[in-house]
Structure formats: C-alpha cells, structure tokens
C-alpha cells in the first residue's frame, strides 16, 4: 500500500536519537499527518536487574526486521518507517528498540508501529540475558507466550 518508501533498518550497539529519527522521516515533507514512535527500554524489574546483554544473529537480524517492515509497508499506507534494535550490554533505563512510523493518517501509523513491535518480539533473532545486581551468572530471558499471541492477532 505504501509507495516509494525506503525503510531505515539498523542493528547497532550505540543508542539511538528518537528526535533525529523522527526528523529523518518528516523533514521537508508536507504529506505527513501522523508520526508514531515506540521506544522499548530496559526495566530494572523492581531493582533485581542491573543490565541486559543482548545477543543477536548478525545478518539474519537485519533481514528479519526488514521482512517485518516490508509487511507493514504492504499493509498500511505509510510515508516512512524506521526500525532500530540495539545489541550488547544495555543498562536499566536505557533504550533497546525503536520503531518510527509516518503516515497521512494516525491509525495507519499506530497500527503499523504496533505490528512491527509484535513481530520483532517473536521473529527477529535477538536473545536477552539478564544480569542481576549481584555478581552471579546471568539468566536467559524465556520467550513469553503473550508475545507469540500478540503476533497472531494480525493474521
């Protein structure tokens, strides 16, 4: 449904800049009525968590994100879309993932951003290991059944 949109996909160790990513999609354009951003952050789980270590499968991670983003572009009339996922050690309170969608209409921007997040959770090869406050060996986060369910509601 979207025409002539070149998505921005990045998998990176560094933090991202939400304002800069919005500007990249909107600057100099007059056809955008709505921009939605989703930022996923590292929670401290009531103080039990110190940091996450995020492992990824280089190459496949970018490919899977691009595939989800392409599905969103086919499904909704977007004028732009950006997805950034970080890897490596991420302290509590830091950013993990960013999705930005731009459209003439608000519902398309909202739905596309939610769709991309639901699918990133279950389809993109990233794995989170939790590092607690103490100096003990971290624990791998188990996949949530709720995330699997969320990705099914779009079919």
């Amino acid at each position: 449904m979207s025409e002539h949109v070149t998505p921005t996909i990045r998998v990176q160790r560094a933090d991202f800049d939400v304002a800069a990513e919005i500007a990249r999609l909107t600057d100099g354009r007059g056809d955008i009525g709505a921009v939605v951003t989703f930022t996923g952050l590292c929670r401290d789980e009531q103080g039990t968590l110190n940091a996450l270590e995020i492992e990824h499968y280089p190459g496949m991670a970018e490919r899977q994100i691009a595939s989800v983003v392409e599905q969103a572009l086919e499904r909704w009339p977007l004028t732009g879309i950006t997805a950034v996922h970080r890897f490596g050690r991420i302290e509590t309170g830091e950013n993990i993932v960013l999705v930005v969608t731009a459209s003439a209409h608000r519902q398309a921007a909202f739905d596309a951003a939610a769709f991309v997040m639901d699918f990133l959770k279950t389809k993109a090869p990233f794995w989170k290991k939790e590092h607690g406050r103490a100096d003990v060996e971290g624990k791998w986060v188990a996949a949530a059944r709720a995330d699997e369910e969320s990705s099914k509601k779009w079919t």
Partner: protein
Amino acid sequence: MKLVYFSWVRERIGKESEEVDLPPEVTTVAELLAWLKTRGDEYAAALEHQDVIRVALDMEHVHHSEKLGTPYEIALFPPMTGG
C-alpha cells in the same frame, strides 16, 4: 556444513560455530538435531528439548520437517526474545 549457535544453545554446546561433515542419511532438520545429540553430552544437553530449538537455513526460519538441502550456514537457537 557450517553450524552456528546462539544464546543458551551456544553456551551449552560450548562453541559459537563449527564445521561438520554430515553423514549422508541426515537429510532433514529433525535428523540433523537427532544426529547432533549423539555427538556428546554438551550437544545432548543443549538440544534436550528438541521441539523448542529454532533452526534457520541461510538465515531463513524452517520447520523441523524441512529438507536441509545444501545451505551455506545452519543456525540453531532458542525462541527469540528481542524487542
């Protein structure tokens, strides 16, 4: 054949990747997993719950029933927890 491992599959097997020579009777993903489990305790531990192991052939997810074919790279990993 190049195998790559991630997350706790990598940790339990104890390596990130390796080159293996598959016996000719191993032709599907399920057969590959069963054969790997015979290679040692670390493989048996990593692949104990075989059903949860996700497999990608040349970075494409496949079902366990899939034919292996001749991929450049086979990846084994647990369910993903990104986002």
